């Protein structure tokens, strides 16, 4: 089937999210949440009620049991209206929930998946002030007790999305710094544990409503049965989960680009200068046709990466290429969109200036563009 032909379920989900997004994320509310630098709690509640926070969680744990493509479709359609809201859904589903589904013990799955499906937002705690692209140089430690029955976490994580809303944190710590990255271990931590301090909220260029904070762990005790998977395998898990999580970011970027076109095309068809509609001006045509072509390519890359993953085929290189390309074309399209709208595009009267600011981080988070290219290059170099 063509990549852009969705299954009946996927189409139903696309229609459902589109409808909810258009009716519930009204422009005034989106702007208000941006101004307050906070997603309204009722919207977070709605995300759970609508089922957007449990897309891939199996039905037996209270989820909807859908596929990865459905998650990317949801993220894309939400991003068309508010990429900050989409990011909550993206990080929760594609980074934390999936990590617990893939590597969590039966105990952790039974304890947390139902909560993550119904009312508990999650955050992915990997980066530190001095460990960004070089994530493995992290210095947050988890020291085992003498009998190994629990661990004490100390350190500060930076740039954590969903920090303020999260009830559950997936925290990457080193249990044995002498082993280097092979000591990195993932812990599932209740956000209300003693010693967890949500620090200052970053004041950002875009995605302002999405909470991005430092989280300090001050002698936080965690039981050993809250280790995700195996001790010392954390580095593998974070690479693996980011490999797929970045397809979700690509979906966000593509959604933003589509959101730009949603505003631009009606405007071009209506606005007239020199007696010609802008949509018919040759110079404009060249630009918007080129942009639409690049967006189409990015979209196909995203669907293909989803399908490769769903079919158990290697997809890491394609996922990196997708995120790299999607963030690049969206930056261009959002910038052009302001120009196409002219003076009004530069004001807050249209949403396009927000999309321009929102999408910039696309080339930075979940692996910078340089890291994506390096990843792709390494895979190419090791191909026979």
């Amino acid at each position, binding site marked *: 089937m063509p990549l852009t032909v969705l299954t009946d379920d996927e189409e139903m989900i696309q229609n459902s999210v589109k409808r909810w997004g258009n009716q519930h994320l009204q422009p005034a509310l989106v702007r208000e949440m941006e101004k307050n630098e906070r997603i309204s709690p009722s919207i977070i509640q709605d995300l759970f009620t609508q*089922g957007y926070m449990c897309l891939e969680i199996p039905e037996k744990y209270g989820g909807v049991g859908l596929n990865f493509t459905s998650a990317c479709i949801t993220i894309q359609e939400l991003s068309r209206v508010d990429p900050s809201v989409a990011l909550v859904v993206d990080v929760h589903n594609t980074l934390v929930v999936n990590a617990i589904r893939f590597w969590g013990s039966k105990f952790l799955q039974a304890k947390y998946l139902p909560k993550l499906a119904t009312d508990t937002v999650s955050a992915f705690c990997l980066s530190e002030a001095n460990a960004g692209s070089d994530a493995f140089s992290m210095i947050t430690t988890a020291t085992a007790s003498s009998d190994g029955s629990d661990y004490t976490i100390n350190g500060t994580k930076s740039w954590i999305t969903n920090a303020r809303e999260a009830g559950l944190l997936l925290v990457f710590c080193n249990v044995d710094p002498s082993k280097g990255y092979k000591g990195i271990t993932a812990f599932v931590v209740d956000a209300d544990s003693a010693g967890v301090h949500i620090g200052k909220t970053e004041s950002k260029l875009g995605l302002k409503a999405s909470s991005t904070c430092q989280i300090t762990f001050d002698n936080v005790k965690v039981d050993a049965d809250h280790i995700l998977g195996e001790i010392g395998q954390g580095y593998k898990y974070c690479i693996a989960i980011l490999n797929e999580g970045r397809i979700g970011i690509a979906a966000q970027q593509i959604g933003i680009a589509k959101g730009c076109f949603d505003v631009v095309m009606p405007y071009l068809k209506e606005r007239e200068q020199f007696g010609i509609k802008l949509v018919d001006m040759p110079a404009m045509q060249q630009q918007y046709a080129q942009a639409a072509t690049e967006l189409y390519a990015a979209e196909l890359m995203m669907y293909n990466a989803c399908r490769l993953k769903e079919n158990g085929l290697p997809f890491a290189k394609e996922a990196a290429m997708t995120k790299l390309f999607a963030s690049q074309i969206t930056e261009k399209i959002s910038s052009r969109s302001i120009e196409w709208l002219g003076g009004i595009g530069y004001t807050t009267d249209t949403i396009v200036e927000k999309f321009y600011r929102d999408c910039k981080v696309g080339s930075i988070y979940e692996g910078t563009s340089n890291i994506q290219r390096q990843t792709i290059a390494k895979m190419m170099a090791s191909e026979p």
Partner: protein
Amino acid sequence: MKILVGVKRVVDYAVKVRVGANGVELKNVKMSLNPFCEIAVEAAVRLKENKAASVSEVVALSIGPKQCQETLRTAMAMGCDRAIHIHTDLRGDYMELQSDSVAKLFQKVIEEKEKDVDLVLVGKQAIDSDCGQVGPMLAGYLNWPQATFAAKIDLDGDGLMVERETDQGTETIKIAKLPAVVSCDLRLNEPRYATLPNIMKAKKKKIDQFQADEFDVDLTAKNKVLEVFEPPARKEGITVDNVNQLIDKLKNEAGLLQ
């Protein structure tokens, strides 16, 4: 109380329809649940949620092509317990299958298949054919009381108190005893979203399938459509040079001023 809700699959309200050689172009056009039927489903589900109504089940009924099952799935995702699909490939937008046949099919379902229906809820009209006839015709054929254009439905003893919207204002009708037919208007309620969990659960709910021609109902159109055409294109306005000219035009050309 057992409720039967009619749901029709129609061209989506946001689509800009095009007229072809055979009437409105339906090929590759987005189809959705008729907005007034959606309001009827919401009314049925709210009654079910109201303990005082003692609703045993809500059954959704749709007549049309195979894709009506998606429409029924939406109705079940909103809260209908199960559904009936009467399959026909005849066009339901007045071109082939018309109100009288639809009303008679509903009657057959009630008399032969779902014998204990207490309340039929339908939308006041479908946005493709805009007839508004099925509700009243069905009530006539069943010889049941009816209330159309309902803006409010309240339980009242063994019956219902229904506020109807008319051109002169609101009229309140007391339906002394069920069973009855009620058609639903815009202001009756705001339909809920079908959440993803409910959409997936709806897949497991039952749809009973029948063929339209297995019922003893004449499906041929009673009215012949002679022509379908778009309304005339809006004519361009003119600019006037001053207020006097404007007043002159309004008075002598448009006839809007005395």
